[in-house]
């Protein structure tokens, strides 16, 4: 067993950090404040291969792996929660999904531009009445000639409105329950597909979160992804991978808050000495640092198991559960150590605390992760 990362990962981290600090961090507060989707950053992400990290080169990707991808989301999350989830949703929930379940034609047509970052991806599973109970899908897809006709709506869809390619789940046979759900690739300009209400959120406010509306939306039969009735299974496998991404986002946010706090407590003086000289501060930082390291090991283990094509579902759930809870705890403590300055928008800490909360909710709530882990144990 070797806990050292290979040289390429160290160099990747250097590159990710340079990119994040120079291209992403300077606008992080602004896009949060203005609730603005950072389209200019997406162009830059594409240019340096950050939108196709775990996709093979033959499909326009970078030919790297899930560990390399996970570290990218982590480093982006360290400075900007919004940017990290744009990458995570695009990669884990759309590009990788088409890589794993698409036909060769679908990969050439949809995966290649996604991996090159020429197009942005999104994923539609959640509905108003199908959240944690994702099997309760009400969106329908009925065969009509050479097309499927989709009707219904999806909510809370990340990258909606800015994405070009959507993977959408819909019921093809209600009688079959979860085995009646199928997956479809929907292009943003298919007739009958529109973007609904944009949500106003607590955190990750620069990311676009909207409703998807399907009104007699015609999707050609060749855009069925995987086999008929396999949509639920595809969605669950996809979320396993997505959890590594969101866990990495949570870790990044927590690491960002920690790094900010370390700098702050060395400079901030009270009672005539730096906050870092107080044992309370030292003990808090020691706890935070230990939890960061534990979360990182869980995440890298899950990513490496996925790379080695070993079962990793429970590993991803543990990583996501722990990293998300650690992110919430560390950002909250970071605000506390900053005192009043942590609560105002002049400092990034309050944003990090707001951004952290969603990691306990999306891509399976912490409770869902516990269900997955318990099922693995029992």
């Amino acid at each position, binding site marked *: 067993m070797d806990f050292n990362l*290979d*040289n*390429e990962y160290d*160099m*990747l981290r250097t*590159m990710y950090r*340079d*990119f994040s600090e120079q291209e992403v961090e300077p606008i992080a507060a602004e896009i949060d404040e203005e609730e603005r989707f950072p389209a200019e950053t997406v162009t830059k992400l594409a240019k*340096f*291969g*950050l939108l196709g*990290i775990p996709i093979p*080169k033959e499909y326009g*990707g*970078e*030919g*790297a792996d899930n560990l*390399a991808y996970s570290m*990218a989301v982590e480093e982006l999350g360290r400075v900007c929660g919004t940017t990290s989830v744009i990458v995570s949703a695009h990669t884990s929930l759309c590009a990788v999904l088409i890589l794993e379940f698409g036909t060769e034609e679908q990969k050439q047509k949809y995966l290649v531009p996604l991996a090159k970052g020429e197009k942005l991806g999104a994923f539609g599973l959640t509905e108003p009445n199908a959240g944690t109970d994702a099997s309760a899908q009400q969106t329908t897809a009925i065969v009509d000639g050479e097309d499927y006709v989709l009707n219904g709506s999806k909510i809370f869809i990340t990258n909606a409105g800015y994405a070009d390619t959507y993977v959408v789940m819909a019921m093809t046979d209600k009688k079959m329950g979860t085995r009646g759900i199928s997956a479809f690739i929907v292009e943003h300009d298919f007739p009958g597909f529109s973007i609904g209400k944009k949500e106003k959120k607590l955190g990750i406010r620069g990311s676009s979160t909207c409703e998807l509306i399907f009104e007699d939306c015609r999707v050609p039969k060749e855009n069925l992804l995987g086999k008929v009735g396999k949509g639920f299974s595809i969605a669950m496998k996809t979320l396993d991978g997505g959890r590594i991404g969101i866990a990495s986002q949570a870790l990044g946010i927590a690491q960002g808050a920690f790094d900010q706090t370390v700098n702050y407590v060395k400079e901030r003086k009270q009672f005539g000495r730096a906050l870092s000289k107080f044992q309370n501060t030292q003990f808090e930082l020691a706890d935070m640092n230990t939890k960061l390291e534990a979360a990182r090991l869980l995440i890298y283990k899950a990513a490496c198991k996925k790379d080695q094509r070993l079962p990793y579902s429970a590993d991803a759930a543990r990583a996501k559960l722990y990293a998300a809870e650690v992110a919430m705890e560390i950002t909250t403590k970071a605000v506390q150590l900053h005192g009043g300055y942590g609560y105002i928008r002049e400092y990034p800490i309050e944003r990090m605390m707001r951004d952290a909360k969603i990691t306990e909710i999306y891509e399976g709530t912490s409770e869902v992760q516990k269900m997955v882990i318990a099922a693995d144990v029992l």
Partner: protein
Amino acid sequence: MKIVVCIKQVPDTTEVKLDPETGTLIRKGVPSIINPDDKRGLEAALQLKDEFGAEVVVLTMGPPQADNALRESFGMGVDQAILLTDRAFAGSDTLATSHTLAAAIRKISPDLIIAGRQAIDGDTAQVGPQIAEHLNLPQVSYVFDLQKEDEKHLIVKRSFEDGSHRLRIKMPCLITTLSEMNTPRYMSVGKIFDAYREKKVEIWNLKDIDIETATLGLAGSPTKVQKSFTKSVKDKGVVYDDVSPKEAAKLIVDKLTEKYIL
């Protein structure tokens, strides 16, 4: 077109901290980077490659750890990387270094040689020009703009204290580049992976180059360092904005008086 870019791995001086007790530099744990001027030269070569197509070879002389700087060059997009390393090269001053690099470059026979103006750890600005002299090639130093005119000529802008010169230079030639020339690109994810998994850094030893051994290493180095010392740390300067000429004059006189200059 074949371009050789000479790079040096140097300690990141922006990360060097002073020991508050002794006032000396703490070198331990300081990361190594590609010398900033050299990295601009690398970027300039890669821009020529992007625009016109070129084979970019990166060359460094140094200990085996310099491998990292060469892998980083692969991450940015160079085609070939050569590490000149041998015990016989140890202790080289700028003259011995330039002899060694020139011997390696002779073997590659490029159309263009690019070197950074100077390294942040030595600040001599000698190696690039010396290489050109050994190879008997035309050279332009302090270049901040580079255009290809045709297959045989470059148009470069050379910075001077009081302005700049625009020059046409015939290849093969050597230029040295300034930090303000461009902004180096980020490495890309796939190229970083390839840098370690697909690409190979070529190791050249003494036996791989044709050179007089008397010009090498410590023996070939006429430079003798008499004394080295740490410059004392100065206070941060003060900027007085928005003061009238009269107030400014008074401030200056007061400061000069305070320092017993007046």
